[in-house]
């Protein structure tokens, strides 16, 4: 590659980097306290539906191997 082509590639790359950084710089940001509060709310609202958190009764556990019942 000629050095002229190389430097115009570098300029193109630099332009793309600046363009990308402009996009990323221009977003609206919310406070971490608000982001955390929303996440905490989500977890607490959904906790009661979370089987791995709440535990699963043996009778409702499709993965638990059923032991054979003996009728006495």
């Amino acid at each position, binding site marked *: 590659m000629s050095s002229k082509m190389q*430097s115009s590639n*570098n*300029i193109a790359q*630099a*332009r793309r*980097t*600046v363009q*990308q*950084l*402009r*996009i*990323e*710089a221009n*977003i*609206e*940001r*919310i*406070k*971490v*306290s*608000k*982001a*955390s*509060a*929303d*996440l*905490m709310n*989500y*977890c*607490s*609202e*959904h*906790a009661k*539906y*979370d*089987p*791995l*958190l709440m535990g*699963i009764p043996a009778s409702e*556990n*499709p*993965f*638990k*191997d059923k032991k054979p019942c003996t009728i006495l």
Partner: protein
Amino acid sequence: MGEMEQMKKEAEALKTQIEAARKAVHDTDMASAASGVAPAPRVQLKTRKNLKGHLAKIYAMHWSTDNRLMVSASQDGKLLIWDSHTGNKVNAVPLKSSWVMTCAYAPSGNLVASGGLDNMCTVYNLKTPVIKTVKELDAHTGYLSCARFLSDTEILTASGDTTCALWDLETGKQKTVFLNHVGDCMCLSLSPDMNSFVSGACDSLAKLWDIRDGQCKQTFQGHTSDINAISFLPSGNAFITGSDDCTCKMYDLRADQEVIGYQDAALNSGVTSLALSMSARLIFAGYDDFNCNIWDSLKGEKVGVLSGHDNRVSCTGVPPDGMCVCTGSWDSFLKIWN
């Protein structure tokens, strides 16, 4: 050259501006904010199923949306479809290339995909009388590290060629190529609303992408090594990453930064995989040290461990109904825990 100098200056100024903006909203971190929250209970899960069938290292697994079937991929050159309730193998798909690194189940349950060192993503129809290859997606110039179906007509891939791509499954061509990472892309996760996805790469960065316009919207720093695993929270506002730097991190999209890290001085193995419980309170992270550690996502504390594999845990998955967690390992077994 004048323009080059100008570009460099502007880039530096923009980076400084971004850092300052992030700092300005960093009024706390998640662990401090959650200090009043009751700790998650000590989580002790039992192995309910030990799925034996693969003859070599398992590299990937993915649950079907029916909460019962799952697909696993091994370098024994096979995809296996399992009925997780019975532990039985429902299907075996022989692969053209045994160097598989990823597998995926379509939301419809009709298709599965796999890919790896062959640089291709191969899609199979499970519903034809004999399982058929329906497409070989061939355009990446590096290995396929991750694939995820949006539907029966679109699939997203991540590649060692540093790009991600959205493919049209009817034409077999790339619709959109996502360019911005400077290291191998290792993982991706779709947002719950399916309008965006996040990717993790060997450049230690995570990036948020708009699926339709192909644009990288945000870049997240913090990790100091390859990001091997990534997962959106069901709320859609945050995602978790797992890295070779032995830590996991939660990043919030709207705060545009890391809000909490999950690490322990005693842990010096890389994170290979991760999955979230339904409420997102628990993070199941697979490590090179053969364990899967369970983290309280809000408080950053370890609340349990899944021990039992005899080699690296390479993949982890929680089905949509949250009823269990599956771990897959280089020891060739998959375990179901709850």
